């Protein structure tokens, strides 16, 4: 399908390598430092670029939502090869729940124009509510195939291998459709130097939730409130030994003691 239009939803998150922390007054996850493209979304961007290429040309756009105008993660996706982005940024969005997020992203997708394919990760690395892609499909009135581990376009339809509890299903769906892809579905490319330079010139349109007509958003629209935050009972560390060449015997003794061997 030539000239295929694809929109990928991307999230910009705090670097997962640094420990997360909660805002002491709101109990929201702190996202005030530098944000990066969620690794889970790099797979979606790569998948979109490959599908567009194999379709003989197409256009990959990205949409994202962030309360603080952050764009660095989106620039990474543009450096990989996406052509433009829409960022919904609005301080009012802080504290938004998954449903509000889906409504906001739906507005952003519609701002670009309804594509043939919407791609998202199955869940974000930092919040992992895991419902936004399917909620977004429902808001947009689209069919959806979640947890895709293989995606192919054939004519005006997608053919997908979808993970199940016991293996996988083959699923077919006519376009337009929303697909959520699992990590590992493709190998994300590293942005080239030229890609990084080009990305600086690509357009990111910034809009507010109000511009998109989505309200209420943020804490007031969330339908939930923090009740308590407590420390879980910590698991005690046991014995830690350096292997002196005989550590396997310790494991055998440990298993014997438990009567599992």
């Amino acid at each position, binding site marked *: 399908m030539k000239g295929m239009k694809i929109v990928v939803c991307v999230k910009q998150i705090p670097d997962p390598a640094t420990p997360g922390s909660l805002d002491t007054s709101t109990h929201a996850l702190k996202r005030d430092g530098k944000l990066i493209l969620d690794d889970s979304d790099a797979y979606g961007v790569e998948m979109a670029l490959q599908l567009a290429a194999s379709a003989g040309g197409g256009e990959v756009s990205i949409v994202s939502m962030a309360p603080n105008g952050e764009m660095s993660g989106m620039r990474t996706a543009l450096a990989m090869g996406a052509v433009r982005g829409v960022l919904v940024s609005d301080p009012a969005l802080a504290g938004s729940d998954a449903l509000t997020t889906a409504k906001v992203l739906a507005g952003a997708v519609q701002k670009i124009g309804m594509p043939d394919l919407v791609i998202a990760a199955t869940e974000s690395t930092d919040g992992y509510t895991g419902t936004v892609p399917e909620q977004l499909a429902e808001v947009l009135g689209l069919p959806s195939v979640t947890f895709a581990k293989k995606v192919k376009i054939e004519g005006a339809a997608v053919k997908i291998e979808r993970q199940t509890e016991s293996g996988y299903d083959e699923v077919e769906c006519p376009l337009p459709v929303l697909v959520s892809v699992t990590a590992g579905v493709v190998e994300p490319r590293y942005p080239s130097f030229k890609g990084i330079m080009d990305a600086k010139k690509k357009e990111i349109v910034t809009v507010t939730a109000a511009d998109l007509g989505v309200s209420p958003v943020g804490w007031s629209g969330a339908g939930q409130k923090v009740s308590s935050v407590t420390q879980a009972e910590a698991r005690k560390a046991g*014995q830690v030994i350096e292997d002196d060449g005989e550590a396997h015997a310790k494991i055998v003794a440990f298993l014997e003691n*438990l009567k599992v061997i």
Partner: protein
Amino acid sequence: MAVNNIWVFAQGANGAATTFTLELLTKARSLASNVSAFVAGDGTSLAGELGKYGATKVYSTGDLGGRLVGVAASAAMKALIDGGDKPDLILFPQNYDGRDTLARLSVKLNSTVLTNNIDISVNGDEVVATTPIFGGNVLFATAFTGAGPHLASFRPKSFAAEPSNGAAAQVVAVAVPDTGVTGAAKVTAVHVEESTGPKLDEANIVVSGGRGLGESKNYGLVEELAKLLHGAPGASRAIVDAGWVPYSYQVGQTGKVVKPSVYIAAGISGATQHMVGMKGSKNIIAINKDKEAPIFAVADLGIVGDVHKVLPKLIEALKARG
């Protein structure tokens, strides 16, 4: 709004209700007197077992004819609710079809969702769900503020399944409304990945491997050890993403939750993502060459050493025992 009426999104496999379903039913009946099961498929054959665990009614859509569950089940639930059959709370399993259905229904009802929970409590009008964050070190409790039905999903093994020995649930056939273009996706073939030995999430012993194994062929050591111990092999997300083993092997936040008697982590550093899925194990043995690895903070026996040396010797020692 007190909670009197709870639905459980119930699932069957090989003609029986899943353990996950029975866990949720057990919890539901501790919260409310009126518990119903909703089956996106044939609920008739499950009615006896669902009743035994506390469901008085089972809504059954019958065979979905290749339609995906999320769209069909959420539309059928919405039709029931619009018809006046309205629960105060719906409990979903945190799995593929549970998540899809929960998400679609939340848009139809304009209700928030609380996911990844390990507990839920009802205090008068307040319904509070609890989810572990930061690798399970912090428990985050959230209350619903809007009108019901409240929608929540749970991790497997959050509750123990205990029968109430109730009578078979009354079967109520429900129709799936026309879902238009949203229902356009169709399953054309089903593939079951055969595995021998105990299932990962039911095994008494689990041996998991991670990036520390170095390369994919060394995963054979993990499989061999698991087999010798009559356990199941598992994996960290890192080596699943790298394509060494299928996703069905993954233990962790986005994979399976395991609580075996013994969990052996070989070459796994203990990322938050992984710890969430195995911290509930009764005994944990960790082998890792980095003595600072977070996995040692939860291990009952930690071996700072090279998995390529320790595992072969351990396998030999176990074989020698016969």
